[in-house]
């Protein structure tokens, strides 16, 4: 199916993108739909982008639903272990 499910937000950080170059990322798009590369019918897809640099300024991941949930838990676990004063 095309779920059309799309969630957008802003982020502030960097990603290593095309050609191995780092670039600042300002936007993230999250959607559950057909992957381009992963061998699954549907995946949780995340695009980290800088729209000002054009469509190619993108780091994309396609994760199975189960592995995406584990990623969420891993991120939360890692952040939970960080003292509040370090989160700046």
């Amino acid at each position, binding site marked *: *199916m095309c779920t*059309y499910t*799309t969630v*957008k937000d802003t982020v502030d950080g960097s990603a290593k993108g095309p050609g191995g170059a780092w670039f600042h990322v300002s936007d993230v*798009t999250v959607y559950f739909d057909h992957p381009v590369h992963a061998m699954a019918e549907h995946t949780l897809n995340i695009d980290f*982008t800088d*729209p000002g640099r*054009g*469509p190619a300024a993108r780091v994309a991941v396609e994760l199975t639903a189960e592995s995406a949930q584990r990623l969420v838990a891993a991120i939360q676990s890692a952040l939970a272990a960080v003292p509040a004063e370090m989160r700046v």
Partner: protein
Amino acid sequence: MTSYPDTSPGSLFATTISVAGHGGDQIEAYLARPAGDAPRGGVVVIHHMPGYDRETKEMVRHLAELGYDAICPNLYSREAPGADPADASAAVRARGGVPDDRLVGDVAGAAAYLRSLPGANGKVGVIGHCSGGRQSVLAACRLDLDAAVDCYGAFVVGDVPPGLDIRVTNLLPDLPQLSAPLLGLFGVEDQHPSPEQVAELGRILTEQGNDFEFHSYEDAGHGFFAVNRPGYRVAAANDGWERIAAFFAKHLEG
């Protein structure tokens, strides 16, 4: 030694061109034509949400091999000219997707281009897969076309979940304007559209008196025509291509 362009039977050529789309915008398009000057119909191919990719261009050439002038407008030309198809798709998705009015304008421009070609018999059909399936039905509701093929398009009927950051509605308001014959190809294991939604669409078209035929394949889900994806189902795809060939032969020749 063969000279080019080769015009012997079975030859075809394919090229990238620019056509006037919605609002007169010049957009990229992939065109494939059978060689020779025999009269032929035309087919507009609407690419799926993942974009104007190699597999879609292969379908365009397949339709030329069947004897039609076929064209696929790059629906993402405006936002991402020259970009990798996957990057272009991501960029357009992040901006909310392709607006319906623009899609219709781009298909109208592509159809007009086909009708202007030497040898064109004036008949034009449309085909799309996935999101393009819905857009194929949409185009056939709003434009004067001779045949339409919907390959597992979601949200032709059915409710769109609220809160999406992408513009999509069902086509219930448009369906009364559907004038072209419609071929629908679906997978029984698909949930978007589900078998119940396919049945609902069939009921609506029956009540309206439309000319349509639907085929739903067992052991097939969404995307069964996609040769490079795990959902590819060879039996369903082979039969589907035969149905497409017969349908366009019936409605686009002469």
